[in-house]
């Protein structure tokens, strides 16, 4: 067992581009779930519309890059309205089912053979990252001894972590404003807020849009760091993993989703590396009747599922959360 490799894999994932995607998506979910108590199980859908908004605009419509970015974000705003207007008046689990269904519809349609001309079928679209990579100021890869990143990754990391920092700042400022306090009180007791004359539906819709835009940002960043927009990346399990990341860090905390994503990827990549090494046929190996190398990649998901259950049962507030802030209940 080479622990250097494990630490390398875990650290480069924990600070890498994928963790940034999760952090941005989870910041959006934090506004939905942590602060407002909305159950959005379709964050992958928000990411998909934004990512494909960008890709289609550049590749198929030949629009300038920045316009395409704006279109991408606009798509997630539109999706929030489409989802929110009918379902936000209903009980929490209706929004959950509506969002998860919409996200699946989007994924299936974007990946359908019949729309290959528009969305590229199951291979998706690529060839839109040129302008993004042209801005790259770095000249070579970075090697810090234990972790190293390529030149392209380094640029994605810089942009990504700046985005995450700005998002956190925005969330921090918003949530200590009167607007943010209304959101929290909606989470605690919707009827009480309504009796104070607040338009609960309006506030919920605003929260859904704002969180959806962060989801869109995550989608944009995902397709940019990857260089392609592929429908299967935006599946339902992504949303569930983002929830896991959020809950690990602690919902209703500004830095909860960020810390959560880092820890989530540290554990996922670390476990993957450990069990990968235990089954790779060199050094100390587990017997193959117990685990083969294909099975080794599944151990982390087993741990993840079990971890999510135990977390929600024993410590729903996560690492940094406040237990009183997460006493959410659907009525």
């Amino acid at each position, binding site marked *: 067992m080479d622990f250097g490799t494990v630490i390398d894999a875990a650290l480069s994932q924990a600070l890498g581009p994928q963790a940034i995607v999760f952090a941005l998506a989870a910041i959006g979910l934090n506004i939905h779930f942590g602060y407002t108590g909305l159950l959005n199980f379709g964050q992958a859908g928000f990411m998909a519309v934004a990512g494909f908004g960008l890709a289609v605009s550049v590749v198929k419509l030949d629009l300038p890059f920045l316009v395409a970015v704006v279109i991408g974000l606009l798509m997630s705003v539109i999706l929030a309205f489409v989802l929110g207007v009918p379902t936000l008046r209903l009980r929490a*689990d*209706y929004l959950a*089912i509506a969002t*998860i269904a919409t996200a699946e519809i989007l994924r299936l349609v974007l990946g*359908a053979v019949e729309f290959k001309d528009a969305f590229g079928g199951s291979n998706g679209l690529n060839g839109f990252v040129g302008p993004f990579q042209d801005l790259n100021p770095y000249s070579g890869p970075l090697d810090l001894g234990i972790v190293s990143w390529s030149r392209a990754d380094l640029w994605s990391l810089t942009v990504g972590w700046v985005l995450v920092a700005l998002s956190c700042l925005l969330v921090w400022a918003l949530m200590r404003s009167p607007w943010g306090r209304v959101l929290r009180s909606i989470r605690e007791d919707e009827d009480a807020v309504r009796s104070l004359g607040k338009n609960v539906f309006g506030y919920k819709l605003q929260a859904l849009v704002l969180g959806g835009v962060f989801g869109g940002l995550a989608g944009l960043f995902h397709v940019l760091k990857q260089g392609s927009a592929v429908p299967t990346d935006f599946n339902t399990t992504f949303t569930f993993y983002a929830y896991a990341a959020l809950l690990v860090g602690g919902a209703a905390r500004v830095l909860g989703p960020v810390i959560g994503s880092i820890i989530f990827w540290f554990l996922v990549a670390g476990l993957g590396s450990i069990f990968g090494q235990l089954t790779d046929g060199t050094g100390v190996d587990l017997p193959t009747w117990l685990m083969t190398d294909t099975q080794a990649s599944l151990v982390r998901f087993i741990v993840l*599922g079990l971890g*999510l*259950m135990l977390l929600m049962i*024993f410590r729903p507030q996560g690492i940094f959360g406040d237990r009183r802030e997460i006493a959410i209940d659907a009525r």
Partner: protein
Amino acid sequence: MRLRLAALVPLVMCLTVLGGLTSSAFADETPSPSPSASAGGTPSATPAAGATAEPPDAEYYVAVQLIDSSKKTATSPGEPVPGVKLTVLAPGGSAAGSAVTDAEGRAYIPIDGGGKYKVELDPKTLPDGVKLSGKAATTKNVSVILEGATNVQFQIGVVAEKGASFGQELSQALFNGVKYGLIIALAGLGLSLIFGTTGLTNFAHGELITFGAIIGYVFNRGLGLPVIAAGVLAVIASAALGWVQDKGLWGPLRKRGTGLVAMMIVSIGLALLARSIFQYTFGGSTRTYSEYVAQGPRKIGPLDVADKELVIMAIAIVVIAITCISLATTRMGKSMRAVADNPALAASSGMRVDSVITAVWILGTALTGLAGFLYAVDKQVSFVMGFKILLLVFAAVTLGGLGTIWGAIIGSIIIGIVSEAGPVFGVPASIKDVGPLFVLILILLLRPQGILGKKQRIG
């Protein structure tokens, strides 16, 4: 913090035991070219005894079976075509190996690893009078991803289907839709019962469907029982899982007063856990039971119907009817409905709410397991089969009205028909599942309580 970790243990153990059973059951199984998935329209026959080519020991190999579909009979999909030379070309274009089909029409060609290969059929070696049909392509591109067999099919002697009339297509779609709907209805009934009494939107419900199918596979292929016996045992095992789930997980959570949203997220965690364990033990491939796999359909009026489809539908209808009648008439059924209506009132009337809920979990999981088993008999077993139809079950139950019994059944039939009849009306077949999800969104928009739901339930 009264709930101890121990409460979770039985559940995990149960899943792990299942894991052990599956993996040991398949340890010595040689990969066999899986039937079904008949892209080329030539379902492969079950191998008969005799001198046949054996699947090689290689980790990766290409498997071909040539069947002349023009000699199709009621019992076999056609005659095997022996003596045909097949060559596999490696990604670079060099030959990776070749083989000649045996008396069963089978040939296996070992290759070095995954990648994009070309399979060439030498048309000169085809017996007289046998011709490739379709586009008569003698080469097929194949991308090898998984270890074991990668099946390649060549169309031989397939007579182009005369364009079925619209009425014929529609009636066939309706029939398939009702069959699909009845299977969904069994699972939906389980979901609806559990939701009605506990309020839990159970995202792990799809895995309960898969459980029924996989445990049936364990009894059938692992222990060698006939499919029907395996089905009975699968339902019993599902009922046991329902009991274990309630005693080990949901019951203790209820007693702690865990909120419904928290429970919903716990169910998501459980779904991830169970699905990964299924994949770990059962593997990522799609398998079939030992019997009733490729049943030739018979003509009934305008319909092509396999016997197993009729039996599946009959079983589903009988079970649904018995469930509904017992919910309406028996003491336990009445208490279930009372608890669903108002748990506090039921408790103060002297009912033991907790044991009623346990009974609901047992009944609900058993029904869902049966749905999974029947679905697997109709199609195949895979570790994601339940996850794939979970949203359809949700759609069905929401359409009918969350927590209502008749609503779940009506909703399921509608969803089944929408799903199957969509392609007849021009919905692309690759996204036919979009139709039901669209219906789900639409019903939330127009009548969120569902067809039979009560308005006060929607919040």
